[in-house]
């Protein structure tokens, strides 16, 4: 299969494009064909933009032929999570309320992707408005985990992770509010990075919780994530929360890490993010990865973040509060779905009510109701106010931990991929999936998940690395080192162990 273009990493594919062995049209078509072959089973995509992708590919091929100086990833196709607005391409955020909406503008990160000449293959499935950990809350059907089609691909970015894991795209964009890049990465055996808050522009991301949302790369290798992260990251004057500084050198960090020398690095194991509730195989792989890091010269220490146990509670107040306000604009007045009441007068209020009643799914309604309640007069201080205080305490926990360790590590998710429907009726069990990923969002620090083996059930497990804000380069250094060591023990990438998907032709 090595001459199958879809099996190449983005970095290798880019090298083939630069050398002229492969054209972008060939590479793009190969991925479109792969989507045609397997996406009926996987359902990673909500929309495939064949024409748009091929037009970009042709343009890049002719520009390359003309000797133009192109971006290193020019011509490498990419999939974009459907929560990111794309001019001229349908954008639904997985919700019926946006069915048929064609945005008139591009998100900043999409502008950068287009300017660099990456063909956009399409938009990937997700939990409605990124609310969920299984992609079962998509209004457009489940995405299936390529490792086991009866299982969830994680969420909310299950579509992006599954697309990359199923070789439908070498690169994808995800967004992570409480773990929506990292947890799908863990359960699909792929790499996902949530950058430092403010590191990638949020302009054009359909907001769930503005103070927590971050877009980031979803790939099969650490180096590919670094390449994509450098492309989409950096200051954007249209996002007031964007960091007005240069990004650290991420690709360099990944290349340097891959050499495998971690001497002098202090790795902190967060004691609150292990033990009870973590699947046995997950804990076992985690311990093995620590041994590998130690063998690369890193010093492993234990650190305590005593307030992390309140993170989930704080998150489920802050996130729904912001979401309840961010989602108010979906009212049938200006764009998207418009539902008129079945009987009685057609007033604006009644149209809004009917539209929201019909357009939003249960999980979205649940969070809007939670958030509305938490912000209500008389409850604000007890709920939203207290949650913000917890957030400050968690930030202090991180500060203290990073005084002792250069990076912190934990399993990304407590379990491997579960079966469809297993947790759908138990929101709390679903929310617990994000227990290890949420603290990073609350503190704004960057985090990476990379595959570190298979659990006893034969399903992939993720290893999480966290770094101080604006030190995203540390994720890449440590991640690339561990990735190289792991692949050395496996004799190749973990995804090579995934069952081949049946080709539906």
């Amino acid at each position, binding site marked *: 299969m090595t001459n199958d273009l879809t099996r190449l990493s983005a970095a290798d594919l880019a090298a083939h494009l630069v050398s002229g062995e492969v054209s972008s049209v060939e590479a793009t078509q190969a991925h479109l064909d792969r989507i045609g072959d397997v996406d009926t089973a996987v359902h990673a995509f909500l929309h495939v933009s064949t024409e748009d992708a091929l037009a970009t590919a042709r343009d890049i091929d002719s520009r390359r032929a003309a000797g133009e100086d192109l971006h290193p990833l020019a011509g490498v196709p990419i999939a974009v999570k459907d929560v990111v607005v794309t001019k001229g391409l349908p954008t639904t955020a997985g919700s019926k309320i946006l069915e048929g909406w064609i*945005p008139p*503008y591009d998100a900043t990160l999409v502008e950068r992707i287009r300017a660099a000449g990456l063909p956009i293959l399409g938009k990937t499935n997700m939990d409605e408005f990124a609310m969920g950990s299984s992609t079962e809350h998509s209004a457009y059907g489940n995405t299936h985990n390529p490792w086991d089609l009866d299982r969830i691909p994680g969420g909310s970015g299950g579509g992006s992770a599954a697309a990359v894991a199923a070789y439908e795209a070498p690169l994808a964009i995800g967004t992570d509010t409480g773990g929506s890049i990292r947890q799908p990465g863990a359960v699909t055996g792929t790499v996902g990075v949530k950058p430092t808050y403010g590191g990638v522009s949020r302009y054009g*991301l359909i907001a769930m919780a*503005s103070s927590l949302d971050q877009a980031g790369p979803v790939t099969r290798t650490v180096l590919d994530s670094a390449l994509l992260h450098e492309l989409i990251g950096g200051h954007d004057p249209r996002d007031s929360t964007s960091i007005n500084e240069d990004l650290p050198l991420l690709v360099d960090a990944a290349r340097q890490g891959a050499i495998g020398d971690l001497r002098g690095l202090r790795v902190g194991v967060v004691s609150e993010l292990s033990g009870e509730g973590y699947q046995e195989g997950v804990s076992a792989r985690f311990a093995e990865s620590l041994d590998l890091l130690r063998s690369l010269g890193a010093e492993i220490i234990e650190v305590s973040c005593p307030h992390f146990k309140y993170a989930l509670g704080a998150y489920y107040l802050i996130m729904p509060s912001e979401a309840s306000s961010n989602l*108010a*604009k979906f009212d049938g007045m*200006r764009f998207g779905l418009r539902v008129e009441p079945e009987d009685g007068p057609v007033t604006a*209020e009644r149209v809004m009510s009917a539209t929201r009643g019909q357009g939003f799914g249960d999980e979205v309604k649940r969070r809007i109701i939670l958030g*509305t309640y938490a912000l209500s007069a008389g409850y*604000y201080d007890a709920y939203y106010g207290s949650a913000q205080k917890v957030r400050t305490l968690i930030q202090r926990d991180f500060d203290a931990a990073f005084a002792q360790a250069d990076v912190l590590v934990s399993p990304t998710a407590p379990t491997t991929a579960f079966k469809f429907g297993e947790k759908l009726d138990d929101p709390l069990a679903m929310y617990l999936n994000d227990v290890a990923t949420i603290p990073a969002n609350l503190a704004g620090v960057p985090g990476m998940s990379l595959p570190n083996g298979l659990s006893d059930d034969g399903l992939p497990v993720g290893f999480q690395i966290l770094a101080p804000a604006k030190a995203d380069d540390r994720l890449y250094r440590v991640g690339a080192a561990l990735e190289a060591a792991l692949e050395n023990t496996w004799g190749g990438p973990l995804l090579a162990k995934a069952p081949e998907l049946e080709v539906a032709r």
Partner: protein
Amino acid sequence: MSAHATVDLVDYDEAVRRYDPVIGIEVHVELGTKTKMFCAAEVEFGGEPNTQVTPVSLGLPGALPVVNGKAVEYAIKIGLALNCQIAESCRFARKNYFYPDVPKNFQTSQYDEPIAFDGYLDVELEDGTIFRVDIERAHMEEDAGKNTHVGGATGRIHGAEYSLVDYNRAGIPLVEIVTRPITGAGERAPEVARAYVQTLRDIFRALDVSEARMERGNVRADVNLSLRATPESPLGTRTETKNVNSFRSIERAVRYEVSRQAAVLDEGGTVIQETRHWHEDTSVTTAGRVKSDAEDYRYFPEPDLVPVAPSRDWVEQIRATLPELPVARRNRLQGEWGYADAEMRDVVNAGALDLIEATVAAGASPAAARKWWMGELARYAKTSDTEIAEIAVTPAQIAQLQALVDSGRINDKLARQVLEGVLAGEGDPEAVVVARGLEVVSDDGALLEAIDAALAAQPDIVEKVRSGNMGPIGAIIGAVMKATKGQADAGRVRELVIERIG
């Protein structure tokens, strides 16, 4: 007066004898920035509907706000002019409510951290009294779009077939200025309310932060009013009257609410805390939304924006560029010109202050400048139904006209004819004098000819004058002036007549 005629009112004078009115005023001013509060959509009055919009001001999914630095500067200017403290750091907050003219279904405003707070404004009343109004806060926010209700008789939402929304106005920067409860105005509460808003309007113009045109809705006032038994009693329940958009209406709305609330209280009733709407046509207020279940706006800090932290250096730079404010300027000019209080007040009310200042600067005496602008020109403006500042004569022309009078080349009567010529577009006063041949006749020969003719025509008057009765001499002078088309110097004519008869 159909639906509202049933409301009982207490005579205003009677009402303020028995109750102490307390007012509170919220003024919204639209800032005259080139672009909107949170995006680069241009702001221009009268554009085609929904042409001055961006993804941000339409509230499209994914769009994010960015604070307009000019709007912050203008807000600081207003805060400083109102003697406020300027926050070292302040935040925006979301005010959540569903309404189609609010594209995001929340308004980005400021809540517990306004940019300016704890100020005051000295307001001059008609008799020259200075009344101090305490300012609680001035905060930044964005305007909503504009609804047009189509169909139905009244243009109001009730009975309309459908409504149109124009988002051109959505996102225009506003500053909202909120007073503390204004007490101690007594029966002058309506006048204080009016003078306060009028003074603010003048300040906005002087600061050049807004065109501040009431009729365009650049300045909008909400008037809170409550009554209490005595100035020592606790504050009563207030109503908030919205849509009061002219100075006259502000005064009348306060009077109306005083009379209405007094009637409610007289009957032993309780005033309902509610929003009321002012009706310009019928001069009444009617109940709008009931506010008692205090709409819960679920304010929380706007997570899409970072705090606004104006450096102290910047604030001081802005303070240093503040222009002289209207009350200070008025006081200075009154002193320089030597006008009486009543004269000055009339000048200000007529909108002639700038014109007179320019006329004086062009060389006329303050008295002469006032005589022209408040006399002949004010009458002209009134009869031709134009703003005094809009009439077709410049302060420089008036100064030139007065110079012609002062030099004796024309008299007052001729000067009025010259002015007519100027207003008719015949050029500067000099040119009109020449073109119309309006110069004073100073040639005695020509005058004597006319005098002789007049004397010959009225021998009886000549007799009377000869016998020492000087009264009727005016008839002779008048005849001479008439014969010379007013171009004679009346004093010289008189001398010559006496000489001739004598």
